């Protein structure tokens, strides 16, 4: 299992030694504490729970405090706890800390997080519909158009793209390249964009599909 919880710090650009510019997102990932472990015999699957950040103990429910006590984090419970699927026989020590050191440069990673909420949006913004023409008669601007056929079938197709709520959903971006790693500040420099606003929580894991060299 290679994974971390992090905070999106924003985007910038990096130069390589030949002067080529790459756009990157900077993520402050970890250090993450191992809070709990799921095993095949106890839970039916293997996974590990990681904690990230800090909260005041007085703002955390007793149940969470008790859960964190086993890893010695009852006094300063993590602000985010997330579960990561692990290999079958992988062992983690409760209370141990995972950092960006588990990744190396040029690794491929997947990043997921909650996208920015856009509220109720029309089809042009939500699904990139072309809309109508603004001039030469116009009268049909930014509208969805027909939503079906005639008396038969007499209904709207399922999943027809209509106006509605946009954003604020979990999205994964796959196969992003790690351009650089800042060990002293726990930073990951990820090529390209990552879901969510600056300051949002993102999850980083090794890429499921693309194998790192």
């Amino acid at each position, binding site marked *: 299992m290679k994974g971390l919880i992090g905070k999106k*710090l*924003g985007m*910038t*650009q*990096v*130069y390589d*030694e*030949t*002067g080529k*510019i790459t756009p990157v997102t*900077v993520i*402050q990932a970890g250090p993450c504490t191992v809070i709990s472990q799921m095993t095949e015999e106890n839970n039916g699957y293997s996974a590990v729970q990681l904690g990230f950040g800090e909260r005041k103990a007085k703002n955390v429910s007793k149940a969470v405090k008790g859960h964190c006590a086993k890893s010695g984090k009852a006094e300063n419970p993590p602000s985010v706890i997330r579960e990561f699927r692990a290999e079958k026989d992988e062992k983690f020590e409760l209370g141990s800390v995972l950092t960006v050191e588990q990744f190396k440069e040029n690794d491929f990673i997947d990043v997921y997080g909650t996208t920015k909420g856009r509220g109720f949006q029309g089809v042009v913004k939500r699904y990139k519909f072309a809309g109508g023409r603004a001039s030469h008669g116009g009268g049909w601007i930014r509208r969805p158009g027909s939503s079906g056929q005639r008396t038969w079938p007499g209904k709207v197709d399922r999943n027809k793209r209509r106006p509605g709520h946009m954003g604020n959903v979990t999205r994964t971006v796959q196969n992003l390249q790690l351009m650089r790693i*800042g060990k002293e*500040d726990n*930073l990951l420099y990820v090529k390209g964009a990552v879901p969510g606003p600056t300051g949002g929580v993102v999850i980083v894991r090794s890429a499921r599909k693309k194998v790192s060299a």
Partner: protein
Amino acid sequence: MNLMEKVNKAQCRTDLTSFNVGDTLKVYSKIIEGKTERVQAFAGTVIAKKGSGIQETFTLRRIAFGQGMERVYPINSPRIVKIEVQKKGEVRRAKLYYLRDRAGKAARIKDQASN
């Protein structure tokens, strides 16, 4: 310091000579041709500076063989070897795009009075 500022600052170059819009510069930059690498010089007037921090760029303009020519350099690029300020100019605006419509005597820039 904000972490993001620290990240950007760490990448900015501090070894290059500073200059302003209106100055005449000679920029030595590395050029990679296949496997060989050489240094090319380009002299011209700074007609614009754009962006800030790591993304800052400047535009050099010169008249080469009777034809106006402009090049945009990222200020923090490791490809820039050296910058020489040949002349300091005195200008009243930040973007000298009006030079594009002028040629010869009309395209001159006043020298900065040394003080």
